[in-house]
């Protein structure tokens, strides 16, 4: 993390591209995984991730350093996703909650187990608020309060989204593949 703060300082003070590129390398795996879970499409997620990092570079001066840098990045990524969703909804007059199926492409990951593939497919069936809160809280380790700040969502909504999402995940994993089998593979 000390390394990260040095890179952030260099980017802000000198508009250092090399320093920012190192930051991109450091965070791209999680930011893209977050966006894939939200959009359910790898190419769209990559476009949004690019937009996220370019916006982050432009707005680097506005990063106060009070919260974590990754939290600040996820906030930008989530805004990019919301903007994308609005434009898609307008174009296609889609009124559902952007819930869909994800065809997991194993070659897009560093490594992915069958268990993780099951989880990604199950997460794709949740709504974006449930997916975002669960991912930030349970996969990336942010507290409920931090997730509330990142997503600009009331704390109560964060908690209810997580609770509802996890219940649905359990149902999906149990229905589609008996959870016992998933757990067996996990152990």
């Amino acid at each position, binding site marked *: 993390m000390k390394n990260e703060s040095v890179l952030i300082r260099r980017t802000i003070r000198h508009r250092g*591209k090399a320093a*920012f*590129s190192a930051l*991109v*390398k450091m965070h*791209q*795996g*999680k930011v*893209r*995984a977050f966006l*894939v879970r939200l959009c359910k499409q790898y190419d769209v997620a*990559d476009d949004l*991730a*690019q937009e996220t*990092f*370019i916006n982050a*570079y*432009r707005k680097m*001066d506005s990063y106060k350093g009070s919260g974590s840098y990754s939290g600040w990045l996820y906030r930008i990524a989530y805004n990019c996703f919301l903007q994308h969703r609005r434009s898609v909804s307008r174009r296609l007059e889609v009124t559902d909650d952007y819930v869909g199926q994800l065809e997991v492409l194993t070659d*897009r*990951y*560093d*490594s*992915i*187990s069958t*268990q*993780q*593939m099951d*989880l*990604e497919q199950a997460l794709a069936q949740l709504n974006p608020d449930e997916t975002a809160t*669960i*991912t930030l809280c*349970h*996969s*990336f*380790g942010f507290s409920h309060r931090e997730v509330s700040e990142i997503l600009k969502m009331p704390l109560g909504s964060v908690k209810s989204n997580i609770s509802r999402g*996890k219940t649905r*995940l*359990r149902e999906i*994993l149990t229905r589609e593949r008996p*959870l016992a089998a*998933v*757990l067996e593979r*996990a152990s």
Partner: protein
Amino acid sequence: MSDNLEFDALDKMLAQPALIADRGFSERVSGKLGKTISMRSKVFVAAVIGWLALILSLGSPQALYEDLSKLVMLFNFSAQFDFVSTQIGFLDYTTLQSIDYTTLQSSVISLIVFALSTAAVSSLLLRN
């Protein structure tokens, strides 16, 4: 108890997210950063070259002031702009009478100068 165990297992699964491989993504983003910077530079250089070309075609920078003052005088500025128009008029008052351009030509030239100057200053002030 069984439910708790299942939830614990779910938490364990969630805590091990599969991360997307880089596969040149960072380089692509870095490349885009470079492009936004060079675009800014290009706008600045184009504006400056355009401005210089305009000055050369008009003969002297003094003529630019003259055109600008004509544009200012073309409009019926309210009192708050009187000071500005007076200042600009003062700069070239002595040469104003010798201009051959029509008002329309002067206005067009002044607008071009204004656009070029705005582009040049914006390219310096705006972040990528």
